[in-house]
């Protein structure tokens, strides 16, 4: 149950039971729901081609995120992911903010996923003749069941995520085969449906914000760094494998939907892949897509609970938040108090019913985190150059990915400002107030010498 250390004091730790498949399931599981809904709002901004450009440009942004994250996490093998990286490489205030971005991004995404499950139940009931079903009990059940699962152990939690994420991914492949891609014009009508950019290039820029739905959350893989058997191998393999899966899934999703629906409809559809399944005319396919949409939402909520609780736990363990949250369950070896604490918060977000606002807050928190990563990797390579510490993975072409990431993040901020300027300013104000609170009231409780745990040599120049 516990390890015995040199000072013969009994210590508890999380179980190291995960492999690269679990990491893949965590990353892709959180994201894949974005293929089933949400990505298509980029079509409303930039047309079908604008959405495809956003898909690949934002794909490049996330490829940079995945490469940078894989390198740093392969050396900082600790729960908390980017929070722990920021703590070691930049400093406490950045770490606090990054920790908060993570908790907010994942808890809000979890709430949005639970809302989707509730809405699917309502649609299912309507299709079977029961109108006006109350979604609240199903929203709460989704959060309660997944919190219970997460509480009882990470292995079962992420094994379930692997199964349901795999089914959801296969559903996209089955739909792709069903639309006869080798026979253009038979089912898919790209020639008739694809138009020029309806709002020009400014529309393409505006669509970047919703292009993030294709990949939002893949960086969550590094939250599992303390629970994998080999962080240096599993995190890069799972993350990069996940990124490849998502690039394929995103491109197929666009190809199928853009060939079946006019951009004016696609840009405002609630469940575009399910609609595509319906348009093909097969009841079995329609049912498969309905189940896959539900599985994708559940897998996303499940991964989000896992990640948000690890980030909150890490903040507690370092006393950035009350140390009470830094406890590990002696039997299940999970951060159980953090899991429980975040349940009412997720339910509260979900009960607002404001899916748009909740998701925007989540996307912006993620974007702030990616901006941090571009600065973080430059500082990391400068302080600990190649060869000074062991890296499980070294990303190529440094500093090109970092520069690309920073440029693309700036473009996405601009895109967000065009559509959600007030939300962008509100969230920035929230994090500024939180930073002042941390500096003035909280940092005095942090045991400064205890928080730097990596057995690294003194950084270059210090």
């Amino acid at each position, binding site marked *: 149950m516990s*390890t015995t250390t040199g000072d013969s004091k009994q210590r508890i*730790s999380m179980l190291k039971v995960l492999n690269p498949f679990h990491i893949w399931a965590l990353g892709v599981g959180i994201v894949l729901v974005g293929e089933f809904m949400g990505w298509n709002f980029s079509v409303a901004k930039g047309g079908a081609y604008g959405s495809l450009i956003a898909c690949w440009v934002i794909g490049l942004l996330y490829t940079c995120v995945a490469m940078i994250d894989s390198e740093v996490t392969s050396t900082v093998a*600790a729960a908390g992911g980017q929070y722990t990286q920021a703590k070691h490489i930049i400093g406490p205030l950045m770490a606090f903010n990054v920790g908060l971005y993570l908790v907010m991004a994942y808890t809000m995404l979890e709430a949005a996923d639970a809302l989707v499950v509730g809405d699917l139940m309502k649609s299912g009931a309507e299709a079977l003749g*029961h109108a006006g079903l109350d979604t609240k*009990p199903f929203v709460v059940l989704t*959060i309660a069941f997944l919190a219970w699962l997460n509480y009882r152990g990470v292995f079962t939690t992420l094994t379930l995520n692997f199964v349901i994420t795999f089914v959801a991914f296969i559903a996209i492949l089955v739909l792709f085969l069903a639309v006869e891609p080798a026979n253009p014009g038979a089912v898919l009508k790209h020639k008739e449906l694809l138009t020029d950019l309806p709002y020009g290039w400014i529309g393409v820029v505006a669509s970047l914000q919703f292009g993030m739905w294709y990949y939002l959350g893949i960086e969550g893989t590094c939250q599992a760094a*303390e629970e994998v058997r080999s962080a240096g191998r599993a995190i890069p393999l799972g993350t990069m494998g996940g990124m490849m899966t998502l690039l394929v899934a995103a491109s197929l999703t666009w190809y199928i939907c853009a060939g079946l629906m006019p951009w004016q409809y696609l840009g405002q559809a609630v469940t575009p892949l399910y609609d595509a399944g319906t348009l093909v005319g097969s009841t079995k396919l329609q049912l498969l897509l309905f189940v896959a949409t539900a599985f994708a939402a559940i897998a996303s909520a499940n991964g989000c609970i896992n990640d948000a609780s690890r980030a909150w736990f890490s903040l507690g363990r370092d006393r950035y938040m009350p140390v009470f949250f830094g406890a*590990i369950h002696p039997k299940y070896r999970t951060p159980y108090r953090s899991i429980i604490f975040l349940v009412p918060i997720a339910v509260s977000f979900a009960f607002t019913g404001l899916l748009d606002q909740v998701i925007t807050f989540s996307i912006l928190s993620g974007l702030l985190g990616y901006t941090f990563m571009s600065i973080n990797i430059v500082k990391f390579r400068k302080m600990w150059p190649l060869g000074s510490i062991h890296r499980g993975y070294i990303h190529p072409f440094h500093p090109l990915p970092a520069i690309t990431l920073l440029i693309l993040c700036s473009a996405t901020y601009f895109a967000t400002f065009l559509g959600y300027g007030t939300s962008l300013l509100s969230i920035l104000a929230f994090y500024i107030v939180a930073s002042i609170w941390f500096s003035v009231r909280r940092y005095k409780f942090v045991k400064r010498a205890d928080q730097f*745990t990596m057995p690294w040599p003194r950084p270059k120049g210090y």
Partner: protein
Amino acid sequence: MDLWDVLSQAAWVVSAALLIWIVKDAISVSQQYDEEFLMSSREGDE
């Protein structure tokens, strides 16, 4: 009361049961184990 109303009621009951189980277990762990032990994990411990 049709099937969907029954399912809604069941969802509330199961949710409550799961959450009560979690909270009860957390309280019992806190009573059985020393706080220092529960919070003794170190970042990156092997």
